[in-house]
């Protein structure tokens, strides 16, 4: 298979969808802010079989192989994160693949619904207005026009705020590694956060993320993972949703994301099943809490302008008073 994705190929796919009458003229989601030209992933839950019989899901395997040189190698012994008597260390559990860890940036989890297995790949949604990147106090996360939200491990202090503000708690911390070690024994930071970076380096070379390529290698046209320009992927998700009479998740959640799940099983049901199984996944409605604050952004323009006019008025009055009083 030719892994190279070109804009021409994407446009062809988009045109095909448009001809099919499903991809064109879709209304923009109210709260989705994706810049034109950004990429997106479609995850079709009706087609993921969890790579049964493969030992390890191909997407997970490809991600681990591709990123193994970037996995953390902590300095031991790792100190507890004072005043807490604990730290995060996954370095002895690198083989874990059933949850997200600093060594496992995509996972495929399984639930049972209607007597059938349902496999759910899970990794960073790469939000359009990501709270993790916007609220990192060290500017360690960047949002690229490709849609990728990328952690810079060189300046990440591991405070785990990105995980706290992520509606899906995606980033995972490894202690004993990173910039914070230079400040020890001061109780600052706690390691480095790790998560999927959408294979930003591959996208820049016009190649799809490793997970998508691996899945396509195994299943060909029946792959549940699709990657391409945002508009094309939105059209694809909508087409598939329409075909199966299902639903799409991720298009509007958290202000819009570049990961679109398509499922026949209602997402509320999937969430309930994971909750029953005490799993970490949820597919609940999520609003972007940054939008609550962005309402005040206009005041940064209006209030200083008003202040300036007020200052001019008062200064003029003061000068007149000085003249009048002979001061």
């Amino acid at each position: 298979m030719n892994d190279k994705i070109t804009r021409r190929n994407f446009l062809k796919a988009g045109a095909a969808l448009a001809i099919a009458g499903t991809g064109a003229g879709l209304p923009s989601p109210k709260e989705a802010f994706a810049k034109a030209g950004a990429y997106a992933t479609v995850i079709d839950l009706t087609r993921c079989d969890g790579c049964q019989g493969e030992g390890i899901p191909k997407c997970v395997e490809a991600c681990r192989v591709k990123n193994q040189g970037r996995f953390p190698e902590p300095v031991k012994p790792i100190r507890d994160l004072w005043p807490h008597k604990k730290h995060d260390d996954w370095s002895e559990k690198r083989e874990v693949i059933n949850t997200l860890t600093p060594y496992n940036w995509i996972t495929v989890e399984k639930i049972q619904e209607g007597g059938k297995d349902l496999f759910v790949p899970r990794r960073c949604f790469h939000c359009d207005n990501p709270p993790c990147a916007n609220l990192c106090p060290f500017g360690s996360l960047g949002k690229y026009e490709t849609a990728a939200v990328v952690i810079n491990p060189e300046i990440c202090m591991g405070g785990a705020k990105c995980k706290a503000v992520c509606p899906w708690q995606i980033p995972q911390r490894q202690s004993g590694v990173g910039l914070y070690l230079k400040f020890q024994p001061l109780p600052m930071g706690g390691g480095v956060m790790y998560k999927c970076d959408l294979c930003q380096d591959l996208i820049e070379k016009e190649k799809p993320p490793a997970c998508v390529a691996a899945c396509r290698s195994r299943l060909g046209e029946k792959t549940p993972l699709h990657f391409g320009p945002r508009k094309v992927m939105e059209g694809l998700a909508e087409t598939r949703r329409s075909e199966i009479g299902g639903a799409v998740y991720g298009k509007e959640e958290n202000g819009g994301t570049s990961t679109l799940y398509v499922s026949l099983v209602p997402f509320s049901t999937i969430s309930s099943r994971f909750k029953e199984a005490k799993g970490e996944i949820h597919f609940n409605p999520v609003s972007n809490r940054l939008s609550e604050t962005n309402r005040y952004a206009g005041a940064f323009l209006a209030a200083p302008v008003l202040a300036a006019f007020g200052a001019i008025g008062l200064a003029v009055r003061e000068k007149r008073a000085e003249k009048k009083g002979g001061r």
Partner: protein
Amino acid sequence: MAERILPQENAVLRHERIELLEHWLFALSGLILIFSGFGELPMFKRFLVTELPLMSWSGDYFLHLKIHYLAAVIFVSVAVFHLVYHGLLGHRGLIPKKGDLGASGKTILSFAGIGREPKSGKYLPEQRLAYLYMALVAGILIATGLIKVVKNLPGIYLPPGLITVATLTHTIATVFFLLGVIAHLAALVLKVNRPLVRPIFTGKVDLDYVRLRHTLWYDELVALGQPDVIAGEDEPLEALAPLEGLEGGGGQAEEKPNGSKG
């Protein structure tokens, strides 16, 4: 400028109401910004502040962000007002002058009993330097803060390198701002500075204090014509006992019991 001697009150009107309002809005919004800014660092939960009574909310980053925005709107507006208002009126008293660094050094040494504090105008040289310091830090905080506000808007993609630089600069400048506030308040540890507490609440400063420590300003005020005050110039200055080390202050009182300006 309405600064003038108030003979009936044995005081000098040092600050107008507008200036007091500026100061307190700047101070209160600044303190809120520091608190909410530190709340944006992942430290309140880490250091168990969220476990304190009535402080469980302090772990909510989005709430801190809202508070930070609202306080920042006030902070930026006051800064703009300050620049425009005082700029138009030609107020230059707080802008550092040549020789302020040396004069500040002498002042600090005088606190340790070495030498005498130089004569000052309305503002002490160290106050002018402190003003420059806080203005620079506040300017950096405002510029980087505005970049961060823009960055948080939907559909805005600033270069990750710019975001990293702006964010780190903002965070580090906050530490310098906090140090400035601490130094500002720590100045009150010195008894000699305490007469300046009253004017930042009432606008009025003790006349005898002005006569001794802000000699040049006092002379300017007298030159404006205040005969009854000039007549009171020879009054004893027992109340100024804390002002040791000042030229003409208590430290000099043994040589010149009348506390004359020397």
